[in-house]
């Protein structure tokens, strides 16, 4: 594929970078990234990946745009209220960059559909807001040998890590099991500062782009945490022994996907 003059101009700030170049930009245009959740994390990630010229972007979300989303989910506008989030996201992404193909999946991610959803994609972004989905996405990506970016945000805090098969611990290596339902607040109950989605979701897009072009070091084997009130970042090295993990270890005990129960208020969708 040769770039048109228009594409050379659109992506010139990438192509000039020696870590990207025309080769990296071509890899981006051939890459397929799946974003699960078009909310606080998925919105900025989707915007940056579309702007970057990632050729195929899938986006999964069962919800419709709600007024209370607009404080942080910057891919949606006031006029989009009531529209499926995946539709609203697709329209914004295509308006930014017509080079991009956006596939929409207007559904919850479940043990029954997750493997099918991720199978055609090179890299997965977990932008969901609840533990059952996060464990499900982790287990599915481990089983299907797909690299993915985990992230979570709540109040003034955010965290993320990257899993690449064979290159370090998975999310379950670190967090074992979902907390008991109702033991932890979701972002709906606890609140979240809007810009946190921008900070952490943009870093997820950064990890996806670096993975695709093969630049630098990923957050594999590390958990990066951010406390906005203190303006403190911590890059925590994770234990490298994955052998005892229930899903990615040497003798996995989790060999089938399960749907964990969700806290009551998360279900009123």
């Amino acid at each position, binding site marked *: 594929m040769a*770039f048109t*003059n228009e594409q*050379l*101009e659109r992506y*010139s700030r990438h*192509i*000039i970078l*020696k870590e990207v*170049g*025309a*080769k990296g930009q071509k890899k981006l245009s051939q890459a397929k990234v799946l974003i699960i959740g078009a909310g606080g994390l998925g919105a900025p990630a989707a915007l940056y990946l579309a702007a970057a010229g990632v050729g195929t972007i899938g986006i999964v979300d069962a919800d419709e745009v709600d007024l209370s989303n607009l404080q942080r989910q910057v891919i949606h506008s006031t006029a989009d209220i009531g529209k499926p989030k995946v539709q609203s996201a697709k329209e914004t992404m295509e308006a930014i960059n017509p080079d991009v193909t956006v596939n929409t999946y207007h559904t919850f991610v479940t043990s029954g559909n997750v493997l099918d959803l991720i199978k055609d994609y090179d890299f997965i972004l977990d932008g969901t807001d609840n533990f059952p989905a996060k464990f499900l996405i982790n287990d599915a990506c481990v089983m299907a040998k797909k690299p993915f970016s985990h992230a979570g945000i709540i109040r003034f805090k955010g965290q993320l890590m990257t899993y690449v098969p064979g290159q370090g611990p998975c999310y379950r290596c670190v967090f074992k099991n979902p907390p008991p339902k109702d033991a932890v607040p979701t972002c709906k109950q606890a609140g979240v500062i809007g810009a946190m989605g921008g900070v952490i979701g943009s870093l997820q897009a950064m990890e996806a782009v670096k993975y695709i072009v093969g630049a630098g070091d990923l957050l594999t084997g590390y958990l990066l945490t951010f406390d906005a009130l203190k303006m403190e970042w911590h890059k925590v090295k994770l234990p490298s022994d994955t052998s005892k993990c229930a899903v990615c270890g040497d003798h996995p005990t989790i060999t089938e996907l399960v749907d964990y129960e969700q806290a009551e208020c998360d279900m009123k969708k």
Partner: protein
Amino acid sequence: MAEFNITDKVDITDVNCPITFVKTKVALEELDDGDILEVRLNDGEPVQNVPRSLKEEGHKVLELTQNDDGTYRLIVQKVGD
């Protein structure tokens, strides 16, 4: 004018800075170490900046000559892969 074993040619008279350099860089990326690229470029800003940027990236600028139509012909040898 010296004879060069030209591997590929690129015309950057249809674009402006910084796409002039970007288009040249993209053409060079397709080549192997030691290959020679012929670039057709406009007088002024492209002639001033493109050869300099190519040198900064480590490539060898072998020749810069003016064509009959007022454009320039730049011969650059790729260094590295």
